[in-house]
Every structure is written in C-alpha cells, then in structure tokens.
C-alpha cells in the first residue's frame, strides 16, 4: 500500500476523534435551540466555565479569592484540602452548571419570553461575556492543567496492530479514544432520556409546540431550565475533554467557533446531524490539512501552499454543503407557506 494512503488513514482516524469533540459542542447548541429557539452563543464559554470550575474545585481553590483578598485584605487562596477526588469534583461542577441553568432562565430568559430570536441571540452574547468575566473573577485567568485521571499518550495496541499490518504504527491518543467513548455514551444517554423518561418526553413536546405542551400540563420554565442544565452538562464534558487535551485556558471558549460549521452542516435542530456533521468536519479538516501540507501533492498541482487551514477550512466545507442542502444534512426542509 502506498505510504501516502497509510498516512491518510491515520489522519482520518485522528480526524474522527477531533470530530467527536466538535459534535459534543454542537450538541449543546442543538439541545437549547430545539427546545427554545435560542441560538446560544455562550455555549463555548459554558464549556470554559465548566472546565475552570472543575479544576478550581478539584484543586480546592476558594472561588472569588482575588476579589475577597482585595476587599478584606486577606490572603486566602485554598481551602484546607488541596485536592478533591475527581468524581466528587465532577458532581459538584454538575450542581454548579444546574445552578447556572436556573440563573440563566430565571434572570435572563424568563423576561424575554416571546421576543424575537435576534433579541434572544443578543442576550446570549451578553451572557457569554458576563460568564467569561465571572469565570475570570471566580477562578483567575492562569492556564491550568486538568487531570482527572484520564489515560493519555499513544495507544500502544493500535500502534502495534497497525505496525503489524502496514509496517507503520498509527499515533492515536488514548485521550481521544476516551473522549469518543464518553461522547458516544453521552449521546446514547441523551437519546434514551428524551425517548423514555417523563422529563424527556416533556422536552420533546416543548421542542415541537409550546401551546400544545402547555395544554397537557408541561411547565415551559421547567423544561427550559432542564435543557440549559443538559447543555451545561454537555459543556462540562466537552470542556473536560478539551481541557485535558490542551489545558484549561480562555481560548477554550473558541471551540464554539468549531461548532458553528458543524451546525451549518448538520442542521440546528438535529442531534444525529450534530454528530455526523462533527465527524465530517473533523475528518474533512484533518484530510485537507494533510493534503495541503504534503507539498509533493498540493504544491505540485497548484504551485503554492496554504497555511492555518484549521481556522477556515471547516467554514468553507460547511458553505459548500449549504449550497446543496440549505437545511443541513438532517434539518427539516424549510418550506415557506404562502
């Protein structure tokens, strides 16, 4: 088998893993958009906030320590314990995200019921900056490493197996494999929740028709807090995986920028769309990068090279899809009634 093809296979495998992460972020958007028609610009910041909170709790930091010290002249930074078990820290962070969901619904969107989508969207922009500020104030802005005991480094089994097959060992990070498994479990869990539980059915009903949902006794407020909580949980998972990979820092909120092309591709209301869209973007991006960086292919054909493709290629790919399917891969066909 030609070397280039073998390399490309490795690239595709890695692209799939990255795609899973994109899909995770996109999933958070879809949940909120389906149930409330709100395009949540703050989804990326929520992932950042969740990851920072997780690290902060795990390291036993005092929230708002800078603020407290500046106000009272104290010198506190840590609680008496310096490390909280990962599972407990995760559970506490989940509670914080539920609290955030409650806050967002009660304080912001409760007062904006029935407003134009653009107003709701603007509110989420405000929320994003507010949340970023709160995250900074609460936990400080230093880069942190997030270690909840996930395996990291090259997966030796895959390395050896592929070496035996192709004479070339694939480099697949254990963390990516874990992320893919966690994402798969999360999606399966969400689907089961929506399909079989009382709250999940209420969620689907609200996503379909508010009036009808009210008439069968469903509280819209409750469902909206629920979907923001779920989106917060998804953000926590995405933030944890991403944070474990590249450190918890403010640029983490930029993963939202990766979710946008995924949504354009998969449709804003489709959970399978978010997943398949994420995978296509992940693989497409990785393959394109691989092709243009192998000068002997791209350079030979076009006579020049491209840089920083990861910043823009996803959008180009999404736009190309949009031309052929404006409603996205799985989105419902938009038919204007006249």
């Amino acid at each position, binding site marked *: 088998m030609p070397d280039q093809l073998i390399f490309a296979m490795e690239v595709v495998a890695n692209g799939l893993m990255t795609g899973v992460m994109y899909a995770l972020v996109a999933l958070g958007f879809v949940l909120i958009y389906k149930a409330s028609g709100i395009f949540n610009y703050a989804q990326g910041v929520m992932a950042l906030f969740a990851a920072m909170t997780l690290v902060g709790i795990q390291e036993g930091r005092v929230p708002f320590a800078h603020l407290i010290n500046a106000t009272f002249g104290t010198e506190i930074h840590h609680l008496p314990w310096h490390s909280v078990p990962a599972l407990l820290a995760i559970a506490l962070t989940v509670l914080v995200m539920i609290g955030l969901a409650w806050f967002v619904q009660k304080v912001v969107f409760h007062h904006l019921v029935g407003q134009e989508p653009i107003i709701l969207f603007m509110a989420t922009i405000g929320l994003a900056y507010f949340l970023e500020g709160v995250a900074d104030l609460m936990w400080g802005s230093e880069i942190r490493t997030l270690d909840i005991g996930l395996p990291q480094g090259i997966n030796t089994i895959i390395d050896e197996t592929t070496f035996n097959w192709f004479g070339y060992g694939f480099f697949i990070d254990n963390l990516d494999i874990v992320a893919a498994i966690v994402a798969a479990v999360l999606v399966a869990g969400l689907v089961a*929740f929506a399909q*079989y*539980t*009382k*709250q*999940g*059915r*209420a969620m*689907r*009903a609200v*996503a*379909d*028709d508010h*009036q*009808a*949902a*009210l*008439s*069968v*006794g*469903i*509280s*819209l407020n409750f469902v909206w807090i629920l979907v923001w909580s779920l989106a917060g949980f998804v953000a926590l998972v995405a933030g944890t995986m991403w944070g474990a990979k590249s450190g918890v820092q403010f640029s983490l909120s930029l993963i939202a920028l990766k979710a946008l092309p995924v949504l354009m591709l998969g449709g804003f209301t489709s959970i399978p769309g978010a997943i398949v869209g994420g995978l296509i973007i992940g693989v497409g991006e990785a393959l394109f990068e691989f092709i243009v960086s192998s000068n002997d292919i791209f350079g030979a054909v076009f006579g020049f090279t491209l840089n920083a493709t990861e910043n823009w290629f996803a959008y180009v790919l999404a736009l190309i899809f949009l031309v052929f399917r404006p409603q996205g891969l799985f989105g419902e066909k938009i038919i204007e009634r006249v």
Partner: protein
Amino acid sequence: MTMMQYEPYETPDGRTIGNTLMEMKNITLRFGGVVAIQDISFDIREGEIRAIIGPNGAGKSSMLNVISGFYNPQEGDVWFRGTKRPPMRPYLVARQGIARTFQNIALFDGMSVLDNIMTGRLNHMKTGFLGQAIWWGKAEKEETLNREKAEEIIDFLEIQSIRKTPVGRLPYGLKKRVELARALVAEPELLLLDEPMAGMNVEEKEDMSRFILDVNDEYGTTIALIEHDMGVVMDLSDRVVVMDYGKKIGDGTPDEVRNNQEVIDAYLGVAHD
C-alpha cells in the same frame, strides 16, 4: 361568596347533571382598546355539555382561553370546584384536570399519533427521572398502565389504523380527532373544545358529535364547547351561552335561546357558513 348551588337532576337520556363545577364571575378581558369579553358571568355544571356560541370575533375563544389559563382577565373571578382560583398558568390549570383542544389545532407534528396521545398522560406519570432509573419495575408498570389508557382512547375514537402515523401527515378532520384523544386520555374533569367540528364535512361532523356525546355519557366528563353550527349545538348541548361583541346576550337551554329575540337578531346579521 360561593358558587351557584343547584339540585342534581336527571336528563331524559339518563345522564345526571350535578352541582356547579366551574363559575365565571363578571369576567372582563381587554387587549389594548379591544374589549374581547365584557363583564360576563355563567356557570358550568358537573356532567353537562355547555355550549358557547356567537358570531366570529364574539369572544368565544377568549373565554375558553380564560378558563384554561392562557389569558388572564383584567377583572372578574374564576371559581372551580368550590374555590376561587388565583391567576393561574395554563400548565397548572391542565394539572387541575382541565384539558382542551384548540381552534387552530395544536399537535406535536413531529410525533406519531400514539406519541401525541401519550403526552396527554404526562401528568399521570408519578415516577420522576431518578425514580425511573432506580425503580425500573415501577416505572414500567406505570408505562404499561398509561399505554393501556392510550389504547383505550384510540379504540374509543376509532383511530387504530393511524396509531403510528406522524400527525403532520394526517388530514384536517383526523388531526382534530387526535387532538381530542390527547385531551381525553388525561381523564379530565372538564374538557374544553374550541370549534371541534370547524372545517369538517357532514359525515365527519356527525362522527364528532357522536364522540362528544359518548365521552360525556361514558366517562361522565363535563364538556364546554364552542361551535358555529347552530343545528349541531342545539342537538348536543344541555345549556347554551350566547356571546356577541364580547357581551353575553343569552343563556339557557337550547329552546330558550332559540326563542330569545336578542339572539335571533344577532344571528340574522351574520352570514352562516
């Protein structure tokens, strides 16, 4: 203040009409300058079929929306089961045992007929999210019970053949029937129907009339319905409220309102459809 008191009586066809279930007292509802309901009072008795009629724009749907909590009147009180009801959100009204259908049909278009009907059972599901995870057996039993109730209503309304069809694909008349099924499966004490026969052909109207009578007879459900077709109303209802331009211009048995001069005048000025 309390609600009107009545002695129960038996109708010629053997149904029992009881005491007051719901009473509207001096309800006024305004939208900006438009007075949709002006100082209207009437009551609904247990087990009766109560009709609200009147020309287009008379305020009938608004009245149903006040009862179901979708609109909050500026003035007046709503009494239900002997107590005055504070301003209440529609989902809480639904949980009190008041189910409804809409003039413009509000179904979950993305779901099948069966799933739509099952949403009507949500209030009967006691086991919550965690409970469902922990007491799997109990949740399963509950689910079975809810399924049985849904199937019973499906049989009752003769929609077995479309159980699995997405409601978005159904013709208008069947959608109306599915909406009725969803309301009925909640086992409501009071059922509100906003123009259940609008846009139907004669045959469909006859079917729907029969279903409404059967629901009232077999389940003892109290029904308040809005209808345009005078003939249908006169056949179905025990008592009729007549509205015109937001005011009540008649209230009584079908025979009484038929001979009411004000009602006759209001209806003469209206083109029937």
